């Protein structure tokens, strides 16, 4: 029992060769994942990439079709009850009880987790306060906004103070302000020593929160590293150009190659050219180069790389939902 203790317990999550199939579709196709204690680990990928399925397997919500996983050294398949005590899960869609008020929800979950009535009430009150929901405590959940639901959902995941928290797309569908609040809350959790495994579709979210990121595409892990490492693969920013005359695209590409030494990405729209830049200030060089050749543009913008560009760089295809991915979602629904 003690031989590999020292190494395994350094890891909050250790998964090898995770597989989940829905019919012919391999939703998760042999993914390895290692999350260290105390870090925020981001799983980045488009809709239907298999992020949620992976999380659900690790949280004992879906049986694994292959591979093995340990949470703090506890085997997920063999000891699901222990794993459930170690993990707090906040789902993509708020999983709180619509029939109850916020206060009643937290009381119920507290009671289910073995708290005495008094303690369950006190813990609920404390969490309502911490998540700014005290005034809304007696409201029906149906009157809650999306952000309030997410906050209540996260609060419910924290009742038994789990050392590991799974957040499945915690900010999808939230407005920017609420999103920022959610980020602050997640940072607080980490400051208190929690380990966080989160999935997201947004590179900037992973960038803001995660210490390390795994990029998932069609059930496979295509890259892993710190946000900086990932971004350096696509340049620190992108210059998006639109030419006045699409016929001059070839000439413009030559200019770009000569000036920044990078291969530009052509967008499907006529005359669209995306140039990865090692440094945002090099944009001016490209523009000057185009002017010297009398290549006219209609617009030019400099942007940070988007998930799409990271994807394009890593996989050679766009981060779009494919029809099979939609099928995966449907089948996942059916399997629940």
């Amino acid at each position, binding site marked *: 029992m003690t031989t590999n203790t020292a190494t395994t317990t350094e890891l909050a999550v250790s998964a090898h060769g995770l597989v989940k199939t829905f019919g012919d579709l391999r939703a998760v196709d042999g993914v390895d994942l290692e999350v260290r204690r105390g870090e925020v680990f981001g799983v980045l990928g488009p809709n239907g990439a298999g992020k949620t399925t992976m999380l659900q397997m690790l949280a*004992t919500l879906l049986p694994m079709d292959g591979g093995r996983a340990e949470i703090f050294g506890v085997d997920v398949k063999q000891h699901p009850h222990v794993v459930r005590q170690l993990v707090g*899960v906040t789902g993509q869609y708020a999983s709180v009880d619509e029939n109850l008020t916020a206060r009643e929800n937290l009381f119920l979950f507290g009671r289910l987790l073995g708290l005495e009535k008094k303690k369950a009430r006190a813990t609920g009150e404390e969490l309502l306060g911490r998540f700014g929901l005290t005034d809304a405590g007696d409201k029906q959940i149906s009157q809650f906004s999306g952000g309030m639901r997410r906050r209540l959902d996260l609060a419910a995941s924290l009742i038994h103070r789990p050392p590991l928290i799974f957040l499945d797309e915690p900010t999808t569908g939230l407005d920017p302000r609420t999103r920022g609040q959610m980020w602050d809350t997640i940072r607080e959790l980490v400051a208190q020593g929690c380990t966080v495994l989160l999935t997201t579709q947004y590179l900037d979210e992973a960038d803001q929160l995660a210490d390390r990121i795994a990029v998932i595409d069609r059930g496979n892990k295509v890259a892993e590293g710190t946000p900086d490492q990932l971004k350096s693969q696509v340049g620190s920013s992108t210059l998006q150009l639109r030419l006045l005359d699409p016929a001059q695209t070839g000439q413009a590409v030559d200019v770009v190659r000569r000036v920044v030494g990078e291969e530009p990405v052509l967008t499907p729209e006529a005359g669209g050219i995306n140039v990865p830049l090692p440094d945002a200030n090099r944009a001016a060089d490209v523009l000057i180069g185009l002017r010297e050749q009398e290549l006219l543009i209609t617009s030019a913008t400099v942007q940070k790389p988007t998930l799409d560009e990271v994807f394009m760089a890593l996989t050679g295809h766009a981060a779009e939902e494919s029809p099979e991915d939609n099928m995966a979602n449907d089948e996942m629904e059916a399997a629940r």
Partner: protein
Amino acid sequence: MTTLLSPTVDETVTATTHVGAQDLPARPSVRDTVSQSLAMAWRATKKMRRNPEQFFDVTIQPLLFTAMFAYIFGGAISGSVKDYLPIIIPGILAQTALTACMATGIQLREDMDKGVFDRFKSLPIARIAPLAGPAIADLLRYGTAATLTILTGLAMGYRPGGGFLGVLAGWLLTIVAGWSLAWIFTWLGTIARSAQAVQGISMMIMFPLTFLSNAFVPSSTLPGWLRAFVQVNPVSHVVTAVRDLTNEGHVTAQVGWALLGCAVVVAIFLPLSVRSYSRKM
């Protein structure tokens, strides 16, 4: 890190549980299971209070069916409504208990499609708690149905020979039978794809069970092949047992058979329900 966890000590630490998790129990204790089930029952009663339409089938139906069946069949079967009441009241008791427990399965299915069940599944709680909670809360529904049926009968002139204790025993047996049979529908709720499917299948089970029994007519009037089915139908045993209790005040062998039948149903369908619910995750 471990200080964050509630330090519940468990003797049966297995070889694969490592540092940081070794003081956590490998499965919920019986005490935890009971308190978790009661917490789920509390949730179910809150839900009932906010959705009073859940009580329609156990309030309106007993009133309507008792009056309707007594006045329609009374003269034809027993010569008068008053003479029919001792036959029909126990019959309606069994029927309303069955309808009420059919709703248990449908509501469970509806409930399971909601997001909160994802959380229940992710919590370290006994897998039976989300099923047992509504089952406990539904005792209220069976109790309401049985009470209203008996009161309607009394108002129509039913004078049970078994006295207060006999009626009380019949009332209790009805609730026990409803609770036990509900596990069949709970199981259906865990295997069916939608609430509509549960409703459809439940109807197919409920109608033969209630009408092909001695609930409304004496089985002696039926053709031989039908009588054979009626006599093995567990609902018939429950109806006869309730009649013996309320009308005679006797604890007969039928009561024993009815209770045994209930126990068998629970013994089969409770584990099946928990198994299929755990698999669904």
